[in-house]
């Protein structure tokens, strides 16, 4: 019943008149308050997407640098752990107390390509929160004790099975490149890391040409620019400015390969398979998003587990092939990973899951239908707006996109791009990225029934006329 409902909506919405009636007023209202952008005297970009009806203000500084930029493996992970452990003028205790006293929250989140410093507070406390944010970015004390503690924690730390398989996926698919290095760092290099290595990383990478300050919620653009001019006065552009999203000059080559971490004492197998996707700025990005949505994601604990639109989900649900699966499309600045992560305890059926997954992948290149594409577009459009449901999400979207590509696609731009995607586009992009392409995969756990590389690679294309 639910699927019929969805289907009829999808078909209705595909009529242009219907879409324009429903969407136009929204897009006009959004366009009147489009994101504003300006540059500080030192070159730092400030972008805001204000919503003056909000009571809160979210700001963030996104640095176009991550574990790919480090010279010693593990630097960024360690930096992430100690970034909020005090500044030159505030001890960790004072910092925590000041943030807490205004009920704000301060966060650092690092990845392979980006480091995000975010702060959210009540609108009235914006001057305070930006002052603290600027302080932790420019004057982090990185004191030796904190680094030692973080290093010990890092060496003793544990990883979830999902983290393990994704780390190995990057390691084997992008072997020999900076993207293939383990995010948390390997023991040998983490042990050698010192406070000075972190300070050097900050000095080298925290430059105005590779950072962007974003604000959303009740943030006045001019006021934020004035505050930023006052507080972000210690950083400058790098000697050879690169610009946002352009710091990785050599795209890594994708190597088809497998890593098998067999462990028969585990109850569940964690398996991830991926082909090379596209970069965040590629015109094919949104088509791959549509493909990801068509293949779908599923969990047996979902209420509508048996009735999602994904064909793979129906097969997996009926035959109990897996506990859950997630289709992903991870776009980096110069390459990407498009694939599938699944967890199963039905260990005899891993090859069945892979077979049906590859059948669905092949179908994308050969016979994907208009209805599926339309459904996926609607889902993506809805999730796009549902995701940007508050100032923090809006600020994060601004920051992540700007740091990755140097520009920001608004919801309207993305909707326009999605509306243009047809089944023929999906077939073309699937033929380019999936059909007969190299594949990298990693299995962890009881993976006796995970087919070997030759068989999986062979099934990336089928005999057809």
């Amino acid at each position, binding site marked *: 019943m639910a699927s019929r409902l969805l289907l009829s909506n999808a078909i209705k919405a595909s009529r242009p008149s219907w879409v324009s009636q429903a969407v136009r007023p929204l897009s006009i209202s959004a366009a009147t308050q489009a994101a504003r952008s300006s540059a500080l005297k030192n070159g730092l970009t400030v972008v805001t997407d204000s919503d003056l009806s909000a009571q809160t203000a979210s700001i963030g500084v996104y640095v176009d640098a991550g574990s790919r930029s480090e010279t010693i493996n593990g630097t960024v992970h360690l930096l*992430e752990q100690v970034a909020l452990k005090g500044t030159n003028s505030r001890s960790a205790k004072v910092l925590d107390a000041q943030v807490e006293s205004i009920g704000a929250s301060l966060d650092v989140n690092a990845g392979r390509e980006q480091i995000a410093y975010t702060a959210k507070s009540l609108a009235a406390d914006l001057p305070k929160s930006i002052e603290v944010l600027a302080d932790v970015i420019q004057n982090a004390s990185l004191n030796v004790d904190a680094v030692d503690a973080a290093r010990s924690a890092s060496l003793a730390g544990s990883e979830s099975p999902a983290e393990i398989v994704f780390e190995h996926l990057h390691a084997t698919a992008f072997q020999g490149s900076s993207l293939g290095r383990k995010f948390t760092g390997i023991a040998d290099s983490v042990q050698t890391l010192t406070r000075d290595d972190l300070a050097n990383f900050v000095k080298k990478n925290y430059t105005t040409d590779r950072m962007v300050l974003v604000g959303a919620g009740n943030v006045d653009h001019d006021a934020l620019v004035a505050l930023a001019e006052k507080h972000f006065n210690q950083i400058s552009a790098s000697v050879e400015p690169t610009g946002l999203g352009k710091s990785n000059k050599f795209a890594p080559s994708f190597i088809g390969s497998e890593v098998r971490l067999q462990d028969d*004492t585990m109850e569940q197998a964690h398996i991830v398979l991926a082909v090379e996707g596209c970069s965040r700025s590629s015109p094919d990005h949104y088509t791959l998003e549509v493909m990801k949505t068509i293949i779908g994601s599923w969990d047996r604990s979902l209420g509508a587990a048996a009735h999602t639109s994904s064909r793979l989900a129906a097969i997996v649900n009926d035959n109990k092939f897996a506990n859950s699966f997630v289709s992903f499309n991870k776009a980096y600045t110069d390459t990407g990973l498009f694939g599938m992560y699944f967890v199963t305890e039905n260990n005899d059926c891993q090859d069945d899951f892979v077979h049906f997954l590859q059948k669905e992948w092949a179908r994308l290149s050969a016979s994907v239908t208009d209805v599926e594409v339309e459904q996926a577009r609607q889902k993506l459009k809805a999730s796009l707006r549902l995701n940007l449901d508050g100032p923090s999400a809006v600020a994060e979207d601004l920051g992540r996109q700007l740091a990755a590509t140097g520009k920001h696609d608004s919801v309207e731009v993305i909707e326009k791009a999605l509306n243009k995607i047809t089944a023929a586009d999906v077939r073309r992009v699937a033929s380019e990225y999936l059909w007969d392409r190299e594949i990298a995969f990693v299995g962890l756990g009881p993976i006796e029934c995970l087919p070997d590389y030759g068989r999986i690679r062979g099934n990336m294309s089928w005999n057809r006329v």
Partner: protein
Amino acid sequence: MVSIAARLASASLGRSAFRAAAARNVLAPVGLAAQARLKHTSARDTTVIPDFDKYKSGSGDSSNRAFSYFMVGTTGALSFMGAKTTVADFLANMSASADVLALAKVEVDLNTIPEGRNVTIKWRGKPVFIRHRTAGEIDEANAVSVAELRDPQTDSDRVQKPEWLVMLGVCTHLGCVPIGEAGDYGGWYCPCHGSHYDISGRIRKGPAPLNLEIPTYVFDENKVIIG
């Protein structure tokens, strides 16, 4: 702080499902070895992939592919030729040998046959009559009304050149050999049961049901090749 979801999955659906999966994995009893696989237990980290550079192809994907397809294509073509030759060898072995084939055709020099005379030669074990007909005989053969014949055939259906009549010398009744220049119609007469054939070899009288049979033959300058 480090959110794996943020690093790996991008859209909300993916992310929430991912978190759900991750959360369950944390709660589920994952067994001893899962614990043992925690970081840095072995001397060598499994994320350190050995250097396979010397196995890597220096050329691009497409040229490797072209080479593979070339090899597959060439192997296929050679195999096909081998298979074809094998089949041809067997067929040649099973078909008629050269001495048999040599007997399949008979060549007759027409210069040696004067006008108005019959020659009988042996072809594949059967007699073949060749008659060099005179102009009068040709007129006579054409003058016959086809409608009256038991096996209606015009003379031109039975000859390639009017002066040369070539036919099997086997009576269509029971297979005797007719006698030339005999019978009521100036052609052939079968003595066994009295079948009369005319100067075109058509049955005119007697028990035979059909005209005398015409073999395949071709003229080659002054020769006729039968068979």
